[in-house]
């Protein structure tokens, strides 16, 4: 039952990623063909564009949502692959603990950097 619930969250997280990572990829890598949300410079990773996006609350929120969804989707998928290899119960517990703590740590760090970049952008 628990795995069914986690699998459902895995699928739902995939749909969230499809939406927000699709937007991110469009901004970053289809910048000549489509060219959205790069108001200050033709190059998407130019600091002026990074600053302009960081000032928009939408991007701070979408980065944090994408970060959480992608960490859960990726680490849960990785966990499933490891568990399918038939590892022992003790190792499963260790994998669960490492992925959970690692995922939470990365989420806190990534969310902080998205928030801090937004705060910095609004002061400039």
């Amino acid at each position: 039952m628990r795995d069914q619930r986690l699998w459902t969250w895995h699928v739902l997280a995939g749909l969230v990623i499809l939406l927000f990572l699709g937007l991110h990829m469009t901004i970053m890598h289809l910048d000549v063909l489509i060219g959205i949300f790069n108001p200050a410079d033709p190059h998407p990773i130019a600091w002026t564009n990074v600053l302009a996006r960081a000032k928009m609350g939408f991007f701070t929120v979408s980065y944090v949502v994408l970060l959480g969804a992608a960490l859960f989707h990726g680490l849960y998928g990785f966990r499933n692959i490891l568990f399918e290899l038939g590892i022992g119960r003790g190792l499963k517990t260790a994998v669960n603990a490492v992925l959970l703590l690692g995922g939470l740590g990365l989420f806190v760090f990534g969310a902080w950097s998205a928030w801090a970049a937004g705060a910095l952008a609004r002061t400039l």
Partner: protein
Amino acid sequence: MLDNKGHPNRLGVWGWLGGGKWGFERYLYTLHRLTGLGLLFYFLLHIFVTSARAFGAAAWEASMARVTGGIFVIGEFLVFCAFAFHAANGVRLVLVELGWAIGKPIEPVYPYRTSVHEQRPLALGIMVVAGLLVIAGGLDFFILH
């Protein structure tokens, strides 16, 4: 679901590639896993590399300078291709899992048809979509820039 009771996964990772004669969808399964692992690895690095924006323009420029140009352009394009495939195939998997693309149950009358016959056009169509995304990305990465 994950315990494999009575059917241990003896082939391990090699079963992804060398487990026998498989259909087209089996190779999509293998590619889905490989691209997923690649994207996860890139994403974990990406979190650290892009966190430099929290420390101002100089830190950002220095961080981007370390991962721009040369082999990184090829690497980023491979990430884009992995995303295009993984996303398109993920949509197919959701549709199939929800039972929207496998056809209705039918009588087992010879010549037998299975749900694979119903799924195949979706799999091929999804790969065309992924291919078009890769072409668009390739244009943007290598020709229009």
